[in-house]
């Protein structure tokens, strides 16, 4: 019996790889397995090579494996592409006739995929269901599992479509029953329980909705776009106004405009779009307007790899915007954390009247895991604006009133009887333009020193695992959480601990100094070339790392890559 299986569905863009991947993900999740699913797609709508990678196990999964056990090749090119990353006992399911392949290989399992699709459904579209039926059988599951999922997925497409898909799946299932007798891919499942299938972008969108985001505005940019899609899908239900901006400069200025009226607002983009937002970020800092901005990173500079992953915006996000002002930068590592930190971002943004940034990347954005729904429960939302009742008596309002905390009472225009002046120029407490040196000093202290002091007391603590007795401590931020977690579990006897940072600004310097006090060796694990986290650690704590394990090929870390690196140590 296997402990885990990795399946890859490989083909051209436009062949429905995502659909088949999602059907399988849901089926295995519902059958009681843990899954980790991720897409590798090219920046094109048709052609090329895309694949959907699905890892299945009884134990919880957080990352990918390098090699596959089963490859479903939907086109000829996929056969050679995926062959090199096949496990010794692995198989490639392919349609030899369709691909005009005469060659034989012990890993090939021939399936008249296209013929069965045409025979059962009348169109090549149905090859997805044929493949799903086949895999159901090969993994030793009953046909009822795939039947249930197909009925669910195609529920609103009508009985005829459902029947064709079921016939196609049955044909695939029967083909495996008759031609693939081995039980080498059978897996033990847990008792099925209700779980969600959620990726990082879904989680951010859900977090925003739960936190009371009432205006979402963005310019579409991979890999951030699906956040906008999800919010837009639920906009009516939760009364959220969604606007597609003409550019990212407009997007950030729009959320500032909405926030000025007292409502919560957010935007998301990727590095290139975030470049355009930096002036607006500085505006939010200066005018003390609460905003939440997501940077879903992809490899850069410039257009880079539009559909792939990297963590190279760390320095940029920490320093983005001209001038000095307080900010918070969150770096969630899982969908659960992305949800929670998004709600926290809205809270801190409003409490401190600052921009809060959430950094994610394509890997976290597009990876699915099975998650229990209580992870997404809503905490009570607190508001920090002056309430409508309290507003009525206010006639003489100072937007930038100096206080010990640096935080001025935040009024809503039209609720108070007075008026509000907000300015991007240096300003007086009233909000009028000034060039007074003393006022300037007080305002910088307010926006920067005082707010940072408060924020340092609210840092999301680093998550440390297996540090006791560890001789090597791995340090990472953001989407490397999953690979760090599984590696540390696999290397328990070799005493590897790890620390994941869900927040990088304000930097948890004093906590890290304590956590790393006894570490003999410190490595950072980063999806970038510049060892940016290692540099940040040194700058903020004086601690120098022994090594940085870096990956900047546009692909995420996988467990096997990291294991190999750790064996070399």
């Amino acid at each position: 019996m296997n402990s885990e299986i990795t399946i890859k569905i490989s083909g051209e863009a436009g062949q429905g790889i995502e659909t088949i991947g999602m059907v399988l993900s849901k089926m295995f999740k519902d059958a009681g397995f843990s899954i980790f699913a991720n897409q590798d797609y090219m920046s094109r709508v048709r052609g090329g090579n895309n694949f959907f990678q699905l890892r299945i196990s009884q134990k919880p999964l957080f990352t990918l494996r390098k090699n596959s056990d089963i490859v479903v090749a939907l086109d000829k090119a996929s056969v050679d592409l995926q062959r090199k990353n096949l496990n010794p006992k692995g198989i490639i399911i392919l349609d030899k006739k369709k691909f005009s392949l005469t060659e034989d290989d012990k890993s090939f399992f021939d399936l008249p995929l296209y013929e069965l699709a045409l025979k059962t459904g009348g169109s090549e579209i149905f090859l997805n269901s044929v493949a799903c039926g086949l895999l159901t059988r090969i993994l030793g599951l009953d046909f009822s599992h795939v039947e249930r999922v197909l009925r669910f997925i195609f529920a609103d497409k009508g009985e005829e479509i459902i029947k064709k898909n079921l016939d196609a799946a049955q044909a695939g299932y029967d083909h495996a029953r008759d031609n693939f007798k081995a039980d080498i891919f059978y897996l033990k499942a847990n008792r099925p329980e209700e779980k969600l299938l959620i990726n990082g972008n879904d989680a951010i969108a859900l977090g925003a909705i739960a936190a009371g985001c009432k205006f979402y505005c963005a310019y579409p940019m991979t890999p951030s776009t699906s956040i906008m899609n999800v919010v837009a899908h639920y906009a009516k239900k939760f009364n959220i106004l969604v606007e597609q901006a003409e550019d990212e400069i407009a997007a950030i200025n729009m959320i500032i405009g909405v926030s000025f009226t007292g409502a919560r607002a957010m935007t998301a983009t990727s590095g290139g779009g975030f470049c355009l937002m930096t002036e607006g970020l500085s505006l939010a800092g200066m005018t003390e307007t609460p905003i939440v901005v997501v940077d879903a990173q992809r490899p850069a500079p410039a257009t880079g790899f539009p559909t792939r992953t990297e963590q190279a915006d760390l320095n940029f996000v920490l320093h983005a915007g001209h001038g000095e002002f307080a900010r918070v930068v969150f770096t969630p590592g899982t969908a659960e954390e992305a949800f929670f930190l998004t709600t926290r971002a809205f809270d801190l943004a409003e409490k401190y009247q600052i921009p809060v940034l959430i950094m994610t990347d394509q890997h976290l954005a597009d990876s699915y895991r099975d998650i229990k729904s209580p992870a997404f429960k809503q905490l009570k939302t607190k508001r920090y604006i002056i309430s409508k009742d309290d507003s009525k008596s206010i006639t003489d309002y100072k937007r930038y009133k100096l206080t010990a905390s640096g935080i001025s009472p935040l009024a809503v225009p039209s609720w108070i009887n007075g008026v509000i002046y907000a300015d991007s120029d240096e300003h007086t407490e009233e909000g009028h333009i000034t060039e007074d040196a003393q006022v300037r000093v007080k305002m910088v202290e307010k926006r920067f020193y005082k707010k940072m002091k408060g924020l340092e007391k609210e840092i999301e603590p680093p998550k440390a695992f297996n540090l006791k007795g560890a001789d090597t401590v791995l340090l990472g931020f953001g989407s490397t959480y999953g690979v760090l977690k599984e590696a540390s579990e696999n290397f328990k006897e070799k005493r590897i601990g790890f620390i994941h940072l869900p927040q990088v600004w304000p930097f948890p310097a004093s906590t890290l100094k304590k956590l790393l006090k006894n570490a003999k060796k410190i490595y950072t694990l980063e999806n970038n070339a510049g060892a940016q986290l290692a540099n940040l650690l040194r700058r903020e704590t004086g601690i120098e790392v022994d090594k940085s394990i870096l990956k900047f090929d546009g692909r995420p870390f996988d467990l096997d890559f990291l294991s190999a690196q750790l064996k070399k140590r």
Partner: protein
Amino acid sequence: MLEIKDLKSNDEITWCPGCGDFGILNALKKSLVKLDRPLNEILLVSGIGQAAKLPHYLNCNCFNGLHGRALPVAFAAKAANCKLTVIVTTGDGDCYGEGGNHFLHNLRRNIDITVVVHDNQIYGLTKGQASPTTDLGYVTKVQTEGVVLEAFRPLEVAICMGAGFVARGFSADSEHLSWLITEGVKHKGFSLIDVLQPCVTFNKQNTYEWYSKRIYKINDDPNYHPEDKDAAMKKAAEWGERIPIGIIYRNEEKKSYEEKRGLLDKPALVEEDISQIDIKPILKDFI
């Protein structure tokens, strides 16, 4: 009843003596008195430039943001709270240069805001470079052999991109300008009022005298119908010996952004109770 004195703010005015901006400030004050709306429901949004300082000189809400970025802020504030009367005070560089893209797309949105452009055909705050509306051939410290770029044509662009209220005023005729602003605010949709405004320090060509000799009031002509789009396009293009001022184009049929998005019957976004938003019902979609 609102009076002019109610509009005074305690901020010191920093424009050059004789600046055309004073005429616009006076006209705006007259309009606000005439409109008689609660001052705490008026929001003036500006970017950067001399025009952008204007909101500080009035006793209304003010968001003075970044160069070129007044329109996205104004659009969003209005969309978030339709009860606000949102007026943008901007300049030719701010609105047609740095913020050109926002100008185009907010015309398309047809959001119900009034945009008053202090168009002095020059950059004042940076001391005399060409603006998008500087006339061809005008010599500056940068354009040393004269401007070679065609002047931007705000009125034609606005008509063609879908604005329902397009006007031109002259800062020295503050009664007429005040009428334009009042009508612009009353119009349900994007209103553009491009105001010819002499820069007494840096524009030696387009002076009070230069404008006064050329302008004429288009709406005095009983045969001119601002509802006629073709006629309006022609008048919007007229520049040189004769320059029309007044309501060049008017179309009250067009639906505003707020109408199209169903915002008019809804409370402002800030009024929504967000204390406990239950997302449980939608989690069933993520299975």
